[in-house]
């Protein structure tokens, strides 16, 4: 939801380790991050914070999963990627390598996908590897009303 950005972030994991010098906290082992309707699951999460304000969260998994309910009337947005970077200030999610995002039945896959949470704009590009082009699948109209 729009309000997700200012909800508190709760993180659970098997293990956590704080490194004040670098200002990072590393969580490992079935890490789950929740913020409002946003839910991220990954194997390893690194939280970067400055002056104890969280600036960037990097989640790594095979793949890491991201889920959010952007608007009450819309369907869930499901995304995944080997690396998910959540830039809180820019309110943007970057999905890198084996990136995939699904919303209202439409699925986009590719090398890099950028998802602007506020503007709800998804940008995807094949990056340097031409073979790995961006793919998008839109269901037929009759099937869409079905689910």
């Amino acid at each position, binding site marked *: 939801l729009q309000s997700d950005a200012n909800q508190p972030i709760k993180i659970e994991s098997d293990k956590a380790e704080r490194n004040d010098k670098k200002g990072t906290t590393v969580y490992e082992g079935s890490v789950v991050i929740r913020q409002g309707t946003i839910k991220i699951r990954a194997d390893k999460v690194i939280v970067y914070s400055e002056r104890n304000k969280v600036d960037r969260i990097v989640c790594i998994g095979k793949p890491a999963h991201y889920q959010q309910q952007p608007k009450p009337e819309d369907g869930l947005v499901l995304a995944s990627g080997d690396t998910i970077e959540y830039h809180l200030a820019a309110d943007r999610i970057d999905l890198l390598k084996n990136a995939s995002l699904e919303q209202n039945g439409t699925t986009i896959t590719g090398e890099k996908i950028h998802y602007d949470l506020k503007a709800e704009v998804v940008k995807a590009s*094949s990056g340097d590897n031409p073979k790995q082009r961006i793919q998008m699948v*839109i269901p*037929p109209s009759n099937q869409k009303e079905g689910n």
Partner: protein
Amino acid sequence: ESSSGKMQWECKASPSGEWQCGERSLPGRTFSRPTHPEPEAYEPEPDDDAPKVELARNLDWVEQDALTEEQQKTMAPGCCGAYVEPPRDYPESDLDPADAPLRVASETTEVEQENVAHLRGKVQLTQGYRQVRSQNATVDQNTRTVDLDGDVQFREPGLLLTGDHAQINMDTKDVTIDNATYLLHESNVRGTATQMNRRDAVFYIDNATYTTCEPGSNAWQLVSSEVDINPETGIAHAKHVRLEVKDIPIMYAPWLRFPIDDRRASGLLFPSFQFGDENGIDFAQPIYLNLAPNYDATITPRYIQERGPMAEVELRHLSKLTNTVLGGAFLSDDDGGDDDDEEPDVITGDRNYEGEDRWLVSVDHEGGFGKRWSTLVDYTKVSDSDYFRDLDNTTLEVNSQTHLKQVASTSYRLDHWFFNIKGQKFQTLNDDFDRIEQYKQLPRVDANGDYRFGDFVVNLDNQYTYFDHDDDDNLAPTNTYMQDDLGTFVTGERLRLNYSVTWDKQWAWGYFRPTAKVRHLTYNLDDPIMGQNDDSPSVTVPTGVIDAGIYLERDTTWLQGFTQTLEPRVYMVHTKYEDQSDIPDFDTSLMTFSYSQLFRDDRFTGGDRIGDTEQISVGLTSRLIDQNTGVEWLRASFGQIFYLDDRYVTLDPTLNKAFLKALGDPDSLSAAQREVATDMLSDESAYAAEIALRLSENWRAQADLLYDEDDSQLDRGTASLRYNDRNNRLFNVSYRFNRRIPRIVGNEIIDTDIEQADFSTMLPIGRNWSLIAKHNFDLTNSRELETFFGFQYDSCCWRFSLLARRWLDRDDYILLPDEDLEEDDGIFFQIQFKGLAGSGRKVDALLEDGIYGYVPTE
């Protein structure tokens, strides 16, 4: 049906238990709507099967040497390649776009909130069997449309479109494409357009070009402001149409309607052009009007330099059960033609038929396909007997006709009975006064019963006919048996019954078929025939026939896999003599003697005579049969009739029994009568032999021979050698000799034997050229009957034929062969743009008449 090469026949059992056999061209036709599959759950596809749409090369046109064996079969005649659709082997490739997910791949994608995705870079999209590629695309899921620009290529089964901008509706078949190039694979139609869109499966093309030539050839194309093509009906309409040949505009038409496949030629038929010494320039421009799916009209304005303007009309109506063609032609105030061999009328100075109207009316109807009832009308009437010679495409075939059949009949078939009512008369085409009008059968009623009880076959044939004759012309019948006592043609009713029982015993090794038959004839004449007084003569004659034969076989030693048969046959006929001199001759004559005559129980055809017969025919047939397919490679037969008693029933009553018995001096009879008399008193018939040989798949040879031992001379000898590969590669050589009674004119004895040889060929040379030649020579009078020579150029999208011809022009007054008949000659030219307009029928009709086995292709 000469397209056996490229089509494949397949039969499936239909629910009604019938075989549904249809021709299927390879590769398969357009996709029918597939059943609605349940779309499977889809997770993000791994990249390797992202939609890949190859770039179409050369509009899918593949040269011949790059085609596979199967594909080469689909090549249209004259073409050196074919349009080949790349295979669709990606998932969901058989789904209808409306039921399939849209899969699109691109280098970058940007999706905004209102579900509008902008795709950049090598966009490749598939949706069911629809494949699209372009540089960029915008997919708007709210309006369900896809906008593409930059090298757009759109492909659906049987259709390829390219352009620089396009808009596609994801849920329907509507497409719009700008600066388009289009191709319909099935009908070889391609062209360009400023804009092309498809709504409800109909293409609307603006500023279009349209051609069926292969890419790169500008042999001809249609340029039109607006064309719409409907693949379902196969009909296209065009407005403001310009036809360009090699980019030179040669014709303009405000509106044109033409077929995009060969369902039916329509639109502008192509002009036919002829030049002959008698008619001068003869130009005809047929216009075809496709009025409705089941009826159409062809109107042909025609200009004949030496005769004036003329109009021909043909209306055609097709229905599931009937097929009717009405034809008409009218030339008012004929200018008389310019036939220098014909002297003008000595008094008026007019040429033949000058100032007269010339017309033709014809009705051709067949009805009742697959039904118990059936109807038939075959009626042609012309204004005068020279109509065909002066105005029609004068082949020897058409020119030599002497009578026009005018018949209408309807019949009904039960399991054991067949009923038919028929009216039949003829228009006689002759100027010569000794050719008499023919009898009219108005009506003739047949009721034939046919029963089979075990091995017994019972036939109950009944026929009633009223023979009429409008002898308004002052021509008295020459022979008495056709004159009544007032000297005019005898007319009246005839009832003929023909009841027979046959014991049809068949074993594997042979058959024995005795038949007992009774024939009854009774008349009700308006007046008795000349010299007789009974106006209702009648006669009843029993007949006994025994037909027996055995089958001997052996496997051939000198040829593997063949069986040779030896089939001796004996055929005995006994029919008593009954005097029939008070019976007229309405429709009876002697049958042409041949090997088959050995096994017929009467020598007369028609109903007015029951021939007295006391004979035994012996025949031997040997066949060489391929054991595997049953195909007969050789059939040879030889036989003769032994007459056990003289025969006295004749057509000419003066040759009655008493007269023949006292046949003292032979020269009291005319030559024709003497021939009949000696034949009736001879003890055996001529030897009859037939042979039919199949030399290979396409070569056939045939010969038959009648040798008369009494006067040790050949009665008839014919031989023919034919080649036909069912793809219009033809070769025919035939020779006919037929001994005829010489005719005496003045003091000259004229040899009227028929000895004619015919040679005709259609020889494809190379891929596109065919040589056409025919030579029909009369050896008796050593003169040319009909000769033509020409060629045909058959390219991928057009065909051109040029023919030079010389043929013998009929002259009814000629009696002496050395009074040479006039030779007419002419040049015939025909051009045809395949897929646009049907061919002018002129040259095809000549070839069909002239060359045995020629079948005009589309």
